[in-house]
């Protein structure tokens, strides 16, 4: 849908095609719900097709969109009938200029999936405030269907995501948690219409007041396990899949122990592994844990990308109503989020963001000590990110599983079917040995990484590890096979593998400078290609030799 928004003129027709005409049915259904004399707000009106139709039926309509081109187009197609009450405005769905308690209906179609979870919560709360008592919110959006069609949907979505990556467009979000937000904030579902097996739904929600209060409620995610076997499995799921997937938990406020209004407030990313480690490390300590929405990415990567910054912090504080849980005015952030969060740029006015930021230790295991001693200047072990052995082990494991998943699974499968096709099933041990060698090389590079600290150049490190691995693997090879020819046949392969894997490992050490890697990349590619071609030639020769 985002690509279509660039062209207002063709938007409507293309969108109708995209939804197989369902958006027209959705519009008609919405028109049926709205009473003739009422005050209506449409958020994300686009070209104003629906806003116009509603206004022509009688109601007062204010239509808001954040896209200037769309509003412009809508104004050019303003209805010519008399007594039409229709105003267009620029605004976003989480920041619109509307008075409290002024609207009978708020309408929003196909906008929800553009919003991330916390944005959806902010939207619902703002909509609640803008509605009159018993006002209604009409939302049409895409949801995940249930049952059999869920699998079809997921497959289609996986395919669609791959296409999006090639087109470099941002993907829209699945509204899987949306329904959980409704009741806590103050909406009850009056009616629901669905199309396409539930993948498109129109919800009619009515505002209700929680305990007679004049404010909407806040949503809080349920308690999430971080102890026991299942949590260990979740950690392994991250480590053993190369930590490629964004495993997101619900952003929001969680509790460690039994915190009260004077307990410290810790902030972290919503990556499952990060969350589990943090909660385990602060076990026994009463604290509030605010998980910002970093799209399921860990703190370091999120901060170096754009997923853990001021925007995410402000949005989390606004959406969760943090001030209702704590009197504390300090948020303790992980030190590694400093690459994304900019304290001087946070709002100065204390009404919008009444908190000070304190950067805690680098690793969560130092938190209990930090919280107890509250040093003004942290000791070195709390603030320096050393690439210690335990971190190297984890990095090595992640890198190994990553490289198998991303690259080596293909040649392994190819080799497997090739050997079967050539009727050489007694040579299947080649595959075993290949896997074994990749693991050994990765182990040597990750565990022995400090040995290469004499240089910052990854090409030089690659050469160093190539030599080191050649010696170790050569010795292993000799022990296993006792054959000079076999050794020679594999040598180039060991050299290429070590060189390539060293460079690939660069992202797993935190000490790597992206610019240095970019500068090395040209020369690296050339050397890599030469070594790879030589390895393939050498191995092919060996296979042919085996034939004879």
């Amino acid at each position, binding site marked *: 849908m985002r690509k279509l928004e660039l062209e207002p003129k063709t938007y409507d027709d293309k969108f109708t095609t995209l939804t197989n005409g369902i958006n027209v049915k959705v519009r008609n259904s919405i028109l049926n719900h709205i009473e003739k004399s009422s005050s209506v707000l449409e958020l994300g009106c686009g070209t104003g097709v629906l806003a116009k139709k509603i206004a022509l039926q009688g109601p007062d309509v204010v239509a808001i969109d954040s896209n200037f081109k769309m509003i412009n187009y809508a104004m050019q197609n303003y209805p010519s009938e008399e007594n039409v009450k229709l105003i267009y405005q620029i605004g976003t769905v989480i920041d619109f200029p509307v008075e409290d308690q002024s609207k009978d209906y708020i309408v929003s179609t196909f906008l929800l999936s553009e919003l991330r979870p916390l944005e959806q919560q902010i939207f619902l709360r703002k909509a609640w405030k803008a509605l009159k008592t018993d006002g209604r919110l009409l939302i049409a959006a895409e949801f995940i269907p249930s049952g059999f069609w869920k699998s079809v949907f997921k497959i289609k979505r996986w395919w669609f995501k791959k296409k999006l990556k090639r087109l470099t467009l941002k993907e829209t979000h699945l509204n899987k948690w949306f329904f959980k937000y409704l009741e806590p904030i103050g909406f009850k579902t009056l009616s629901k219409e669905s199309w396409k097996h539930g993948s498109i739904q129109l919800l009619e929600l009515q505002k209700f007041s929680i305990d007679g209060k004049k404010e909407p409620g806040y949503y809080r995610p349920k308690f999430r396990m971080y102890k026991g076997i299942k949590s260990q499995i979740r950690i392994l799921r991250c480590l053993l899949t190369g930590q490629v997937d964004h495993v997101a938990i619900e952003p929001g406020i969680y509790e460690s122990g039994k915190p009260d209004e004077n307990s410290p407030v810790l902030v972290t990313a919503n990556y499952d592994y990060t969350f589990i480690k943090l909660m385990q490390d602060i076990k026994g300590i009463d604290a509030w844990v605010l998980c910002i929405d970093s799209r399921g990415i860990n703190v370091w990567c999120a901060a170096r990308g754009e997923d853990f910054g001021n925007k995410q912090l402000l949005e989390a504080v606004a959406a969760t109503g943090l001030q209702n849980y704590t009197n504390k005015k300090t948020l303790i952030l992980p030190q590694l989020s400093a690459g994304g969060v900019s*304290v*001087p740029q946070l709002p100065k006015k204390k009404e919008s963001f009444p908190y000070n930021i304190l950067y805690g230790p680098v690793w969560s295991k130092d938190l209990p000590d930090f919280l107890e001693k509250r040093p003004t200047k942290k000791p070195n072990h709390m603030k320096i990110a050393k690439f210690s052995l335990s971190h190297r082990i984890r990095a090595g494991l992640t890198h190994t599983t990553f490289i198998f998943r991303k690259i080596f699974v293909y040649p392994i499968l190819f080799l497997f079917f090739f050997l079967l096709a050539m009727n050489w099933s007694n040579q299947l041990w080649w595959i075993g040995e290949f896997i074994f060698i990749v693991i050994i090389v990765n182990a040597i590079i990750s565990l022995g990484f400090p040995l290469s600290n004499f240089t910052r150049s990854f090409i030089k490190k690659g050469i160093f590890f190539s030599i080191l691995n050649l010696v170790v693997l050569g010795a292993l090879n000799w022990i296993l096979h006792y054959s000079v020819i076999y050794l020679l046949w594999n040598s180039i392969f060991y050299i290429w593998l070590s060189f390539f894997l060293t460079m690939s490992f660069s*992202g797993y050490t935190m000490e790597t400078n*992206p610019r240095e890697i970019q500068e090395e990349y040209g020369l690296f590619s050339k050397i890599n290609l030469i070594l790879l071609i030589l390895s393939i030639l050498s191995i092919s020769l060996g296979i042919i030799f085996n034939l004879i």
Partner: protein
Amino acid sequence: MTDTNNSCCTSPNLGGIFSTLDIRILIDETKCTGCGQCGEICPFGLPQPLNKGKFQITEPNRCIECSACQRNCVEHAIIMREQKGCGCLWDTRRRLKRPNYKEKCC
């Protein structure tokens, strides 16, 4: 220079020098108040109070240009250009192919 501050352009003495020499990172001693926040934030502890209480970057070749110190310096005393990305091979390859590519590797 990042979006957060353009001290390398506004600083009269250092702006010109920065662009001609290949200095990775520098602390403007005329602005540094010695608060030490940069030292508390740098994951490698590079800023040290060597200059009469004011901070300087030791071992600038170890700086990975993550911009943590620059973004959090209240006085905007740190001059550097942020490098985005984690320095991994795949991210580098993607950025070199398409410099405006917003998607990250991890």
